[in-house]
């Protein structure tokens, strides 16, 4: 059962780059063109009245509705109400998350106490806690801010904790050998080391904050984007509802952009 010997041929064989297909081509215009094409198609479908405008209003009518809401200023009332809640919830959650994350990451007793509590409360969907928060804090602003804060707190605390655990021990040794004590190490080594993780936590958190602000405003509110979406749906004002969705999309994009800028500003040592 000997394999037959492959006879030698005398030819020229030119070596090809086998990784060629891995180099993804760039299509700079395609993203924009396809986006516009989809909008135009949507406009066309609506104009042909194949779908009633109640279900799918034309992009142009959404836009003009949005413009009216801007001119009357009603839209800003809703946006500001939501942003206000997000801001408070976010600030409270980030400060607490960073503080608790460093404590449980760096000190053994807080770690032993805090870890099981976090592990037990983290899996509860925060919307499920909203009724309890309303019971405790009333249906005013504080329960909404609290539910957002809870939602943002967990990704932040977990990110910071992981960050602290992964600080390069060599840098801590270097700082110790140069005369730092424990508190100085937290400020001068741990904190700058975990900045990237803090920003990652903030990016995760802002998505959760948008989700929770809408949910909370749908339960009980008299202003806010969630409130606006719910009431316009009840009144079958689909254009206004769509305006609300677009605002949420724009807010998400804006926050992403903002955090990217802040990250560049605060972490100049990473390009």
């Amino acid at each position, binding site marked *: 059962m000997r394999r037959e010997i492959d006879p030698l041929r005398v030819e020229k064989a030119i070596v090809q780059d086998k990784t060629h297909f891995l180099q993804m081509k760039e299509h700079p215009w395609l993203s924009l063109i396809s986006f516009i094409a989809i909008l135009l198609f949507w406009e066309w479908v609506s104009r042909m009245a194949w779908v009633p405008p109640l279900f799918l209003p034309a992009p142009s009518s959404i836009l003009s509705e949005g413009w009216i809401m801007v001119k009357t200023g009603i839209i800003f009332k809703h946006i500001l109400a939501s942003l206000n809640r997000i801001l408070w919830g976010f600030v409270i959650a980030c400060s607490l998350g960073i503080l608790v994350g460093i404590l449980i990451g760096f000190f053994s007793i807080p770690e032993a106490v805090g870890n099981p509590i976090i592990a037990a409360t983290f899996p509860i969907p925060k919307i499920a806690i909203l009724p309890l928060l309303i019971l405790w804090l009333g249906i005013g602003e504080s329960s909404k801010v609290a539910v957002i804060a809870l939602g943002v707190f967990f990704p932040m605390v977990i990110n910071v904790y992981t960050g602290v655990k992964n600080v*390069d021990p*060599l*840098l801590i*040794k*270097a*700082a*110790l*050998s*140069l*005369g*730092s004590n424990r508190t*100085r190490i937290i400020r*001068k*080594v741990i904190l*700058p*080391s975990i*900045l990237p993780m803090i920003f990652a936590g903030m990016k995760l958190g802002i998505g959760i904050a948008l989700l929770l602000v809408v949910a909370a405003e749908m339960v009980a509110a008299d202003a806010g984007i969630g409130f606006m979406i719910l009431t316009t749906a009840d009144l079958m004002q689909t254009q206004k509802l769509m305006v609300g969705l677009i605002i949420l999309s724009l807010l998400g994009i804006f926050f992403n952009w903002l955090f990217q800028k802040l990250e560049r500003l605060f*972490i*100049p*040592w*990473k*390009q």
Partner: protein
Amino acid sequence: MKVLIDHISKIYRDRRGESTEALRDIHFSMEEKEFVVVVGPSGCGKSTLLNIIAGLLSSTSGQVIFEGPQTDSKPHTAVVFQDFALFPWRTVLKNIVYGLEERGIKWQEQLEIARRYIALVGLQGFENKYPHQLSGGMKQRVSIARALANDPMLLLMDEPFSALDAQTRTLMQYELSRIWEETHKSLLYITHNIQEAVFLGDRVVVLSRRPGRILDIIKIELPRPRSEALTLERRYLEYVDAIWAHIKKQAKDAMEEIG
């Protein structure tokens, strides 16, 4: 200032209670302004010894004693690590003044001291660069300047050039030799490279494989300042040979154990 490494032993215990003996009864002393090199095969506990001297690890028995006038402001040791251990969020200048900051020295004075050591290690023009913008050799220069700027009684270097390529490494050895001639700091240098040990040291402490014991302490009586030409001289090569003879069997056994 005399440093006494007084019968240091170290036994590591892991979680299952199994113990590994890393160092056994290491005993020697260092004189003021002496350049001592500890050389040994891989896994002989060299770095363990350095960490114990730096106060970054506790010994199982024995102690490290600094004999002589002491001040609170002057640290006993400063370490130059193999992997540089520069703070990535600090520029070259801010890395170098780190220890001075911790000692509460005024900014103006910090700056003066930093300038002096930046010039000593040849980093002028790179003060405001971040570590990731530097080559390995330059990173290690920053690390050396940072340790020297803190003015320790004893400078510790843990295989400082092992992470560098062979050519940079050779150049850095010459550089270090020059820097040492200018500062005459008491220096304890850890390496597995015998040529490096002979080229740099006043004395070479030869360690055995694990558990690390002192096989021999060899006084290197070669003229200073030492330069490239020295590496071709017969006496230099004889020292290298003598140490290699000590270590050869140890290294072979260690290699077979690990491989």
